[in-house]
């Protein structure tokens, strides 16, 4: 029983950064913007979170710094693609490259230093309950944030008027503009929210997952988050499921190996991407499915006519 709980806890830790980054990107893409810079914003969050936590000694300040740095960094993307209408794919890719390089430079003095770790939740009485206690009441704070965030985004997108407006912008920015909706303003806010989420996901890596700073420590998780959004066909609850499926597959194969079952670990590592391709093929086979799922103006620059 204990080992099952441990495995579930490990899966939750592995899935949390994927979930947070992907939920942020989902909101961005729902507004019609494709930001491929998730990996870059995530690593900026990781270095910012570690740095602030290390210098002040408080992982909570680190957490805030991670969110702030991710948001500020995404602002760069927003200015380029929204105000200057640059190509979103190219700008997003350069954001990732810039983030990886810049974070390495910022983090030079943090290398080889142990940092601050966010403590796990510990509620007297509740955390000690066998089995469910540690799962429900004994995890790191960012885990709870990730679940709350998913629920909040679901509610926002599908139950509020603002969420409806955001989705309509993603489907047709020209129609939304004609209706008098401030397309660029909405998109700015969406991109910054996505950046804050990516930063938080990076902070999870350097403050909870592996409390240290090393260059490239995101190791491609930003790309998995991007794949996850497509895999989930732009639905928040499917992002949640997808993050946990990807996490479970990864942790499962490690356990299988340790148990002595030979598994093709290279194949399993590529599974998130393969699954995404399969979903893309399924969606794009049918025109109705494409229209129902994909934000129609995704990736297209919008220049309001004056």
């Amino acid at each position, binding site marked *: 029983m204990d080992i099952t709980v441990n495995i579930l806890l490990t899966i939750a830790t592995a899935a949390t950064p994927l979930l947070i980054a992907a939920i942020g990107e989902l909101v961005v893409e729902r507004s019609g913007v494709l930001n491929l810079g998730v990996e870059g914003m995530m690593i900026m969050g990781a270095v910012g979170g570690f740095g602030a936590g290390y210098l002040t000694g408080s992982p909570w300040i680190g957490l805030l710094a991670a969110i702030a740095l991710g948001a500020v960094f995404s602002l760069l993307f927003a200015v380029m693609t929204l105000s200057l209408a640059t190509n979103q794919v190219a700008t997003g890719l350069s954001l990732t490259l810039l983030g990886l390089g810049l974070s390495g430079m910022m983090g030079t003095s943090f*290398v080889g230093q142990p940092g601050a770790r966010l403590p796990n939740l510990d509620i007297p009485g509740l955390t000690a309950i066998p089995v469910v206690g540690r799962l429900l009441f004994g995890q790191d704070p960012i885990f709870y944030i990730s679940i709350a965030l998913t629920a909040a985004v679901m509610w926002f997108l599908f139950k509020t008027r603002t969420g409806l407006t955001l989705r309509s912008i993603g489907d047709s920015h020209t129609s939304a503009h004609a209706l008098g909706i401030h397309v660029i303003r909405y998109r700015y806010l969406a991109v910054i929210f996505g950046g804050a989420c990516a930063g938080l996901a990076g902070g999870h890596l350097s403050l909870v997952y592996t409390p*240290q700073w*090393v260059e490239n420590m995101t190791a491609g998780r930003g790309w998995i988050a991007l794949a996850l959004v497509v895999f989930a066909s732009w639905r928040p609850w499917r992002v949640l499921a997808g993050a946990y499926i990807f996490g479970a597959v990864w942790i499962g194969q490690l356990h299988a*190996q340790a148990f*002595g079952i030979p598994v093709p670990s290279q194949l399993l590592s590529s599974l998130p991407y393969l699954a995404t391709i399969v979903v893309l093929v399924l969606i794009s086979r049918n025109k109705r499915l494409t229209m129902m799922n994909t934000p129609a103006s995704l990736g297209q620059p919008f220049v309001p006519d004056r």
Partner: protein
Amino acid sequence: MKKLLIALVTTAAALSLAATAEAQEKLKACWVYTGPIGDFGYSYQHDQGRLDVEKALGDKVETAYLENVSEGPDADRAFERLAREGCKIIFGTSFGFMDPEVKVAKKFPDVMFEHATGYKTSDNLGIYNARFYEGRYILGQIAAKQSKSGVAGYIVSFPIPEVVMGINSFMLGAQSINPDFKAKIVWVNSWFDPGKEADAAKALFDQGADIIVQHTDSTAALQVAEERGLQGFGQSSDMIKFAPKAQLTSIVDDWGPYYVSRVKAALDGTWKPGNVWLGIKDGAVKMAAYTNMPDDVKAMAQATEKKIVDGWNPFTGPIAKQDGTPWLKEGEVADDGTLLGMNFYVKGVDDKLPQ
């Protein structure tokens, strides 16, 4: 999305000298790393060696490096670029740079090339390596003494000879203390992914291992051990700061003396492609302080270290292969060629080698 970050490093003194007309021709020495120099592991230690060269040879040399260069054909460009930029001696520091380096060395016969941990040489390509397996034998002995469950968790990257050799040496060391000792082996298919390394460590601990060994580059696994109140070994550099209660010792790479001697040879014009394999005796492999263990275990580790310095090889027979067929006879010592191409397990390893 692989980034190729170039950082040209010159000392201020070197810069001012370069400005003067009568400045003597400086030798440009260059390095190619597979990881970031900020990994606090393998690439970090190579870069410390580069800094030692700068310190020792001062304004006679100029150094440059390329980090995060992916292994395989992509590395061609990195080596070619350095050769074109005037590097006179180039060190490739990872196994996967072997074929690219052989190819580029052929194109630039006037440039001196050195490759770490490989086995191909040519007229202007020498090889160098460190006998990390010597340290791993000591780790095995300590693990067998310290483990209560008799099971170690072993996190590994890729099934190359270097790694297989390490697993074998570790197991031989462990079995010399406890013949029933087991190691659970997990391949993570990466030299460097802290998150995956931490996950692998958690999985291994969950399955009953109580000592963690790694052949990957980050401190993540050791931090998990620290959190769980269990023990483990560092890798490439001394990681005691990350795991003050968990680190037993660490195999520390020290490339500095070798790099200094080779760049000096290049300066003097006495450089020839070599084939050296340095061990504990030469100071290229060092053991971090033995900590968190009883005195008798520490004494045992030190005795083994001394035995290795005096010339004993952990791969001394009798040793059988995994399937029980004899490999080395009583007193027979494995030759370096076999070790450098090692693609089989010794008896007692509980894993199937990925092909």
